[in-house]
């Protein structure tokens, strides 16, 4: 078991900055996911931990040992590649035993560990198969078994589920969580799939253009996004972003969106003093806007808007409804009981307690920007 510390780690490929001044501490036994759109530097970060990519600047500590120049095999890590990278000419058992053989473990110990890993990952009876004779899910599990038998201090997973079909992906997600719980190993996981990141991790590190956009538990990044990027990246369907200006009205403070006005949530009031008359972006998740008839929250006056529905996308358990108010478009999630139909009037309620305000210039959450 080990901790991984990034201290101002950067990676440049020629003139291109792939990772910029990364500060992050992964605790012992923690499951941390690096998530972000493609090209955000997440895989490069993982490869630097593995030792496959040289670190341009900064320090990387694995288990409190400065590891910048330690070769991959001496870092106490194991890695599962997106492509699995199974050795095609070796059987499942030979693949799993590969690392153990190099480290010259006794034969009995190798056999014991292979059996253990194969049990853990439900690979019994596949010992003598070649990779090409396995299904995608089986290959994935062999790759995982090959990494686990080494009992690594840190397990690195690079989009291990992205080559599986949707159903298998969900199953393996549960499986991974179970394995992590059982082994209590430190895991750094890379994915571009925010659902995967949210459901698996203890903490999520959202990366954007080579830097960290926010680190936190899945709930933290979901409920209190520090900037527009995180707010828009996490959650599906995406958060609504409405451009407006903060103004004083009567005795309260409101955000004027042009087509309508919304009262500013309680916890934002204090910070908004600096933003009076300034342009902001109001972010609110589709599930925090309700059809008035079904609203459970007491509606604050002024946060109830008459709209016209547009496209309705039924998901089964919920409907994604696009609505319009004058020139403003936004989406809400409705229960099927709402029976939303296209092109009909509807009255919606904004749960402003859950809304966010972002500085238009810095794109940072007003609550967290200093």
């Amino acid at each position, binding site marked *: 078991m080990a901790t991984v510390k990034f201290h101002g780690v950067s990676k440049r490929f020629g003139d291109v900055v792939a990772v910029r001044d990364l500060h992050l501490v992964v605790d012992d036994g923690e499951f941390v996911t690096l998530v972000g759109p493609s090209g955000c530097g997440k895989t490069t970060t993982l490869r630097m931990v593995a030792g496959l990519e040289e670190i341009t600047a900064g320090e990387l500590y694995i288990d409190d040992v400065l590891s910048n120049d330690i070769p*991959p095999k001496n870092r106490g890590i194991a890695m599962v590649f997106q492509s699995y990278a199974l050795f095609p000419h070796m059987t499942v058992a030979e693949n799993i035993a590969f690392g153990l053989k190099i480290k010259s473990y006794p034969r009995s110990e190798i056999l014991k560990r292979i059996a253990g890993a194969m049990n853990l990952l439900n690979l019994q009876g596949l010992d003598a198969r070649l990779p*090409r004779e396995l299904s995608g899910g089986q290959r994935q599990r062999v790759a995982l078994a090959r990494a686990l038998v080494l009992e690594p201090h840190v397990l690195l997973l690079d989009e291990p589920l992205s080559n599986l079909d949707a159903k298998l992906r969900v199953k393996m997600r549960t499986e991974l969580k179970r394995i992590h719980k059982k082994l209590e190993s430190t895991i750094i996981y890379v994915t571009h799939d925010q659902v995967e990141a949210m459901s698996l991790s203890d903490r999520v590190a959202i990366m954007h253009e080579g830097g960290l956009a926010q680190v936190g538990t899945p709930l933290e990044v979901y409920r209190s996004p520090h900037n527009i990027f995180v707010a828009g990246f996490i959650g599906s369907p995406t958060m609504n972003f409405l451009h407006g200006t903060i103004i004083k009205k009567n005795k309260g403070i409101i955000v004027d969106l042009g087509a309508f006005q919304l009262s500013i949530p309680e916890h934002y009031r204090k910070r908004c003093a600096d933003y009076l008359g300034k342009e902001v972006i109001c972010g609110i998740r589709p599930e925090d806007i309700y059809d008035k008839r079904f609203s459970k929250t007491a509606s604050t006056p002024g946060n109830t808007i008459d709209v016209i529905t547009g496209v309705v996308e039924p998901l089964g358990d919920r409907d994604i409804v696009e609505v319009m108010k004058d020139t403003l478009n936004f989406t809400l999630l409705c229960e099927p009981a709402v029976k939303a139909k296209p092109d009909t009037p509807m009255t919606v309620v904004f749960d402003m307690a859950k809304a966010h305000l972002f500085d238009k210039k810095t794109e940072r959450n007003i609550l967290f920007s200093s």
Partner: protein
Amino acid sequence: MRKKNMRGTRVIWLIGIIVMILIVLAPIFVMFKYSLSDRSSVVTGGKPIPLWPYHPTVEQFHGLATMDRFMTAALISLEVALLSILIALVIGTPAAYALVRYRFPGVMVLATLLISVRLFPDIVSVVPIVEVFLKFRLVNSVLGVALAHSLLSIPYVIFIAMGVFETIPRELDEQAQILGASKLYSFTRIIVPVALPGLAAAAIYVFLLSWDEFIFAYFLLAFGDLSTLPVLLKKILSWTPQHNLLAAISVMLSIPVIIFTFVVQKYMRTGATAGAVK
């Protein structure tokens, strides 16, 4: 009307293709025919030579099998070919791997220089090579010819092997490295086994090149008593032998070429890395 036209074009194409195939196959047919001919079908005394021998016979091949000079030459050809394969692969394979995996500056210059040996006509490069080989006492020896042949084939080996290595995902190297393998270990235990079908194709290519190479073998062996098959053929030619004997030797020279060419084709199609990724 249009349909008829299309049919007409098709027939013309077909005839054209058949004619071309006949032109290509004609010398091969003549060679096989002569090799199976009896004396009366070759020396006809002014009458046209028959399309198929009057009395087909394998007498010439039988003669070759009992002809010491031929059997010795065949053996030497085989030795030279196998030794060439060994040298060319031992040098060419790691070179190709380095060229593919390590992108150091000047890679393309180096790769181009490698084929420069073959930019000159063989008859031009043979002179300096014989000159150098004379100094190192490599003339009139199996090793000398094998070295010359590997010199000719290494560029091909490198290019075939580079193609093979490029299809092997880099992740295999990286995974081996993470699991604790040294560069040499992962090259010999992972990369080479995975590349084997492609490398076999390269080996066969070297064999074919060496087996029917004449100029270098002739200049390196002509003044001694060793002969490879092509050199022997030339020596026999010089005392105007029967056509059917020459044809039989030619057939013996061609058979491995024909067989191996088919084998190579098959290897080229095998997916070397099936199951490695995804």
